């Protein structure tokens, strides 16, 4: 995580998320929160800590363990005119609510001929790296981005953590915000006014001309570190943080690849039929003749994430893998 600047006024990603929540709660009386243990307990990852005391039980609603019902409750409340922000502890548990998310939230606007958009925000933790094993370590945000009607965002930076929620509320669509578990403790400076954060564009986090490293979420930091190491070898990588997985901002990465002529995609999700395949395929479709080498991907290995540390590490994208593959791609062809 060293790539993120540590400054005197640094706050954690967790605090940035909390500031984002506080500010929308303060600004919009229709915003309220639902989730398991977000109130009295303070949030399973402590993101919502203190909000119950500040905003009260009506707006910070602890829910019983019933993911399907309380996501559905969010959908209904959104239809009634409120702006619910629902927390599901981790993406693994969201499978219990998938019927409501896919069959209802994502579908109602179109199916009703535009009458019933569902302005619902869902936040969930995702990702591995804390040895919490198979049933708590999935990275399904890429998988979710298959679903039309949803907007999928993956804040990786402190600014995005603070500002994406407000930006999401500008839409009247269901938006899912995926927070990588490994980022909560990351520190950084809140550098911009949250008002300028959008959820429509990817961001170039590092400029370079030799290869495009395309990524999102916690893998951004692995790519930035890899880019530093590549730079030491004389290879300048451009690092693109997709930020929004659906609708995908292909313009930013296609333009980058047209310049660099090589792309490596880094995605913690399982490799097959994942987000990396989509990014690669878009490049195939739109920049094939610009490529000097086939697009490659470094992804999560296709196994349920194991507990043991060395095995978990082996299952996730590693900096050294990125560096080696990127270097070989640049050197391979002219």
């Amino acid at each position, binding site marked *: 995580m060293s790539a993120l600047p540590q400054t005197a006024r640094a706050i954690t990603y967790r605090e940035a998320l909390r500031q984002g929540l506080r500010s929308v709660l303060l600004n919009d009386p229709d915003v309220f929160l639902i989730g398991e243990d977000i109130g009295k307990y303070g949030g399973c990852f402590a993101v919502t800590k203190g909000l119950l005391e500040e905003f009260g039980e009506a707006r910070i609603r602890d829910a019983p363990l019933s993911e399907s019902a309380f996501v559905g409750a969010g959908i*209904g*409340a959104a239809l*009634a005119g409120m702006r*619910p922000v629902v927390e599901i502890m981790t993406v693994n548990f969201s499978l219990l609510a998938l019927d*409501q998310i896919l069959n209802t939230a994502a579908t109602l*606007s179109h199916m009703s001929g535009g009458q019933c958009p569902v302005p619902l925000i869902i936040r969930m933790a995702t990702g591995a790296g804390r040895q919490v094993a198979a049933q708590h370590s999935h990275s399904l945000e890429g998988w979710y981005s298959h679903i039309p*009607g949803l907007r999928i965002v993956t804040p990786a930076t402190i600014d995005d953590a603070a500002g994406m929620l407000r930006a999401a509320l500008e839409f009247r*669509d269901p938006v899912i915000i995926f927070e990588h578990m490994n980022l909560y403790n990351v520190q950084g400076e809140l550098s911009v006014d949250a008002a300028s954060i959008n959820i429509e564009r990817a961001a170039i986090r590092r400029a370079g001309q030799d290869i495009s490293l395309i990524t999102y979420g916690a893998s951004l930091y692995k790519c930035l570190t890899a880019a530093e190491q590549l730079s030491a070898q004389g290879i300048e990588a451009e690092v693109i943080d997709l930020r929004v997985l659906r609708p995908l901002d292909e313009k930013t990465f296609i333009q980058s690849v047209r310049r660099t002529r090589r792309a490596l995609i880094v995605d913690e999700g399982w490799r097959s039929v994942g987000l990396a395949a989509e990014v690669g395929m878009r490049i195939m479709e739109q920049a094939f003749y610009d490529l000097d080498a086939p697009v490659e991907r470094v992804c999560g290995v296709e196994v349920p994430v194991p507990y043991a540390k060395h095995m978990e590490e082996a299952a996730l994208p590693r900096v050294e893998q990125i560096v080696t593959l990127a270097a070989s791609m640049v050197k391979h062809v002219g």
Partner: protein
Amino acid sequence: MTLLPTREHALHLLSEMLRIRCFEDRCAELYSAGKIRGFLHLYNGEEGVAVGVMQALRPEDDIAGTYREHGHAIARGIPMRSLMAELYGKLEGCCRGRGGSMHIFDRERRFFGGNAIVGGGLPLAVGLGLGERLMGRDAIAACFFGEGAVAEGEFHESMNLASLWHLPVLFICENNQYAMGTAWSRSEAETDLIAKLCGYHMRAESVDGMDVLAVEDRARELAEYVRHQRMPAFLEARTYRFRAHSMYDPQLYRSKAEVEDWENKGPLIGLTQRLKAENLMAEEDFIRLQRMANEEVDDAVSFAEQGSLERVEELTRFTYAEQTA
């Protein structure tokens, strides 16, 4: 036996049920004629439930139905034209032809579907109730669902949440005794539905769903309770569907005799007989109402026939909301 209301109201109830019956019978014909496609689930026999309950609701209340929701939609006042056009897949349909029979929406009338996932409307209705509560309005949400949904996890979660959070939701279980071909007793270990409800600390009762007056009576009382106590309530309406589950069902799971038995207890027959017995209605009144209903359906059909088709260029429109917040 429930007291008879004024003649005017009684005829209104009868007329509403007739409108639904006529609409449904016509749909069956139109399906055979290939005008309506997809899955079609008709409401014949259950008209007393939708019509009875709807009397207790106000325009500001929210409604969630099932895929067998033509009856709810008509009783709620969605124009037959917009409904029929929807079944025809026409642009003039309430969902511009995107929804079809199982997905009727009418935001203006606060009719939030039409849901083809058994049990799927329950969490949504809980949310509508939550929304109303948080918005500080005194509207309530009414949720219709079949008894088949009771076995689903979403039923359980929704009952608990509505009760725990004191939400103004009126749950109406249309217990027509079959979920497709599965008899109630073959899907539930405990077949007393009201006994089941004791797990949720919620006011609950049963009513004869074939008696529209009884349904109205209980729905009014429960709706008032929900509205004023801001607590959910549960009404089981015991009813029966006269037709097959959908247009593909050979009905191997029940006997003709059973169906006929129930037909004789039908909601239209029951009310008609009572009104005639009490001299509140003559045969010509009935014929007039039936004719009016038929004419309304005729009109809806010709409206639908003349409707236009959405341009295919609009296919992806509304996948995302057109307006931002």
